[in-house]
């Protein structure tokens, strides 16, 4: 349970970091909070040749709100994002999701961008990125590129970060004035990975009818599964049945496929009801 040997560098600017990544080669990895990477190293499931430690990059330790987007820098830790009332007011789904990410002590060190880049299909923030169709910005020695959520999340623990690239920030749209959101999940113990989880956003039309309803599912597919539930209207039970017909989970050591499908239905009903109530409260309907 000790990490294998690796080279190490600790840059103090984004420019130095991407230069270090470029010179360290394709087997190098970025070390941010380390709350997923270091367990993988300890268990010898990963053996990078070199770690570029970005913990001294104060320039990436920020969260800002501008032009209808919440922008989260790569060194913003979960606890800091969760404790920022302006952020959780602008996009409440971020706060609802982060409160379910592991335990407070893990959130003290883990970074929000890092958990998205890690692309764990059980990750709450990965589902938020997919549901809100956020954008990840990657820096390399030749400049920056932006990748949308649907192109970024490629598979379990696989995201579109190319050798030599550093994810510097993630942008997530703020919640619309007539929209509401909710997050519901079931885990064996508090703070564990969810057996199934659902993030939902509902948008109301002027008349108070449901204009759109979408949900993202964690732990039921290799990447967060996004399902359009608009046709269920304002009926959470119908949305639950619709979700059960659309998910195709597999069985594993933690749960059977049938149980996961059952949870997808129950949690959709809860999340939709929560998001609807939230939307009505926010829009004053």
């Amino acid at each position: 349970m000790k990490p294998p040997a690796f080279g190490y560098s600790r840059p103090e600017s984004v420019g130095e970091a991407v230069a270090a990544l470029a010179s360290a080669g394709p087997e190098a990895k970025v070390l941010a909070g380390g709350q997923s990477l270091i367990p993988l190293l300890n268990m010898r499931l990963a053996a990078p040749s070199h770690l570029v430690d970005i913990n001294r990059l104060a320039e990436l330790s920020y969260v800002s709100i501008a032009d209808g987007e919440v922008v989260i820098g790569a060194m913003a830790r979960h606890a800091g994002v969760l404790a920022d009332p302006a952020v959780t007011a602008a996009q409440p789904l971020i706060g609802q999701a982060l409160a379910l990410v592991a335990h407070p002590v893990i959130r003290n060190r883990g970074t929000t961008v890092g958990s998205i880049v890690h692309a764990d299909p059980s990750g709450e923030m990965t589902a938020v990125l997919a549901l809100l169709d956020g954008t990840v910005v990657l820096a390399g020695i030749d400049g920056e590129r932006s990748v949308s959520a649907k192109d970024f999340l490629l598979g379990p623990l696989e995201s579109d970060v190319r050798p030599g690239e550093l994810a510097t920030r993630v942008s997530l749209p703020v919640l619309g004035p007539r929209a509401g959101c909710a997050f519901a999940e079931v885990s064996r113990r508090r703070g564990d990975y969810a057996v199934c989880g659902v993030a939902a956003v509902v948008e109301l039309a002027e008349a108070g009818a449901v204009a759109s309803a979408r949900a993202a599912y964690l732990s039921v597919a290799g990447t967060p599964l996004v399902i359009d539930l608009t046709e269920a209207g304002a009926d959470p039970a119908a949305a639950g049945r619709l979700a059960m017909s659309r998910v195709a989970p597999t069985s594993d050591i933690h749960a059977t496929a049938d149980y996961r499908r059952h949870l997808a239905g129950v949690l959709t009903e809860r999340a939709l009801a929560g998001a609807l109530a939230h939307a009505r409260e926010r829009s004053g309907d």
Partner: protein
Amino acid sequence: MTEFGASTHPSDGLFDVRLVVNGVTHDVRVPSRRLLSDCLRHDLRLTGTHVGCEHGVCGACTVLVDGTAVRSCLMLAVSADGAAITTVEGLTEPDGTLSPVQQAFADCHGLQCGFCTPGFLITITAALAGSPDPSEAVAREIIGGNLCRCTGYQNIVRAVLRAAELRRSAGGSLGSSPRAGTARAAAS
């Protein structure tokens, strides 16, 4: 870039790291892969920090890094260079007086074998600084990331509430926060 920047592929290279642990400055030379937990235990011989699962689940290795509770098994010693660290050894006053959290564990019989206790003490010490009057539900949330295989947690929950009481009756001053490094250095 720090001096580390120049060493691009020191697979077996060693790094000079300065840690201020419980107020005492230590300069150690470690490989990049040395976990902070192992650095504390093996290099500094501070064996109060316990190592249980080594993948962040059990919480036994929790220490304060610059005042924030973190898992020392999920942090590299080299990443902690320059940090002020508080381990369970640093909770007790120099004259041996137990901190409020330690006293509460003794009062409430919040431990049996004691293996998990250092992690609980550190986690609760940090949490009470931000949440000085927790409800029982909050107490359970505070300790949600620490595993104990002996107690069934009931007495640990009581100890959280008792520690909060002791802190408040001491006016929040007695051991309410980890001692500043300089105070310990002067005392020792």
